[in-house]
């Protein structure tokens, strides 16, 4: 599964994109798994209320299942316009 990071999430984790092998059932499970791996993930995912998630380029939420998903992206609330 491709995992993408944007804005300060990208800066904290240190890469814009990586391949992750996981059996996580939901986005929350994936976050827990990554946070346990290294401090930089724990730092990026410390406050989930400050984060948004997209599954296959559609906004989603942390309860969403990951079955069949090819691309997960984490980022802060958008500030376009």
């Amino acid at each position, binding site marked *: 599964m491709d995992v993408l990071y944007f804005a300060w999430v*990208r800066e904290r984790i240190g890469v814009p994109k990586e391949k992750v092998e996981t059996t996580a059932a939901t986005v929350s499970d994936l976050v827990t798994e990554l946070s346990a791996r290294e401090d930089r993930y724990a730092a990026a995912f410390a406050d989930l209320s400050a984060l948004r998630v997209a599954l296959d380029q559609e906004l989603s939420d942390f309860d969403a299942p990951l079955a069949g998903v090819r691309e997960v992206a984490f980022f802060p609330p*958008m500030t376009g*316009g």
Partner: protein
Amino acid sequence: MRISVQQEPFDLGAEANAFAAGDTANGAIVTFTGVVRDLAQTDLAYMEIEYYPGMTERAIAKIAEEAKSRWSLGDVLVIHRHGRLAPGDRIMMVATAAPHRKDAFEAAEYLMDYLKSRAPFWKKEITGLGAEWVAAKDEDEDALSRW
């Protein structure tokens, strides 16, 4: 409908003229242009806009389609820049054409409100004090509740 996410500057006047050209069915044309502000108190050197190639274009197309389903519209244009922008640079523009002015205005405001909070762009401001990601504003999130 034209949607462009681009690094290059755009010419507001040329875009407005091209958008309005040849359309004699729609009596009302509204444009909105966003400009990087140069506020003395923040001393902004420049801004970096990051986006999510693929998702950003899709999200904008979805917002524009939603606008077209809610209002009686002719054409819709959305241009949004990414990359480095200096104070005074034009960040983005939307244009709407409609038979009636109320539709053109409301659709343009709707596009702006959704672009602010639902299109994947992130702004970073670089000032004399350092670099900082712009925080999303509650008022921008609240603006969605009117639609």
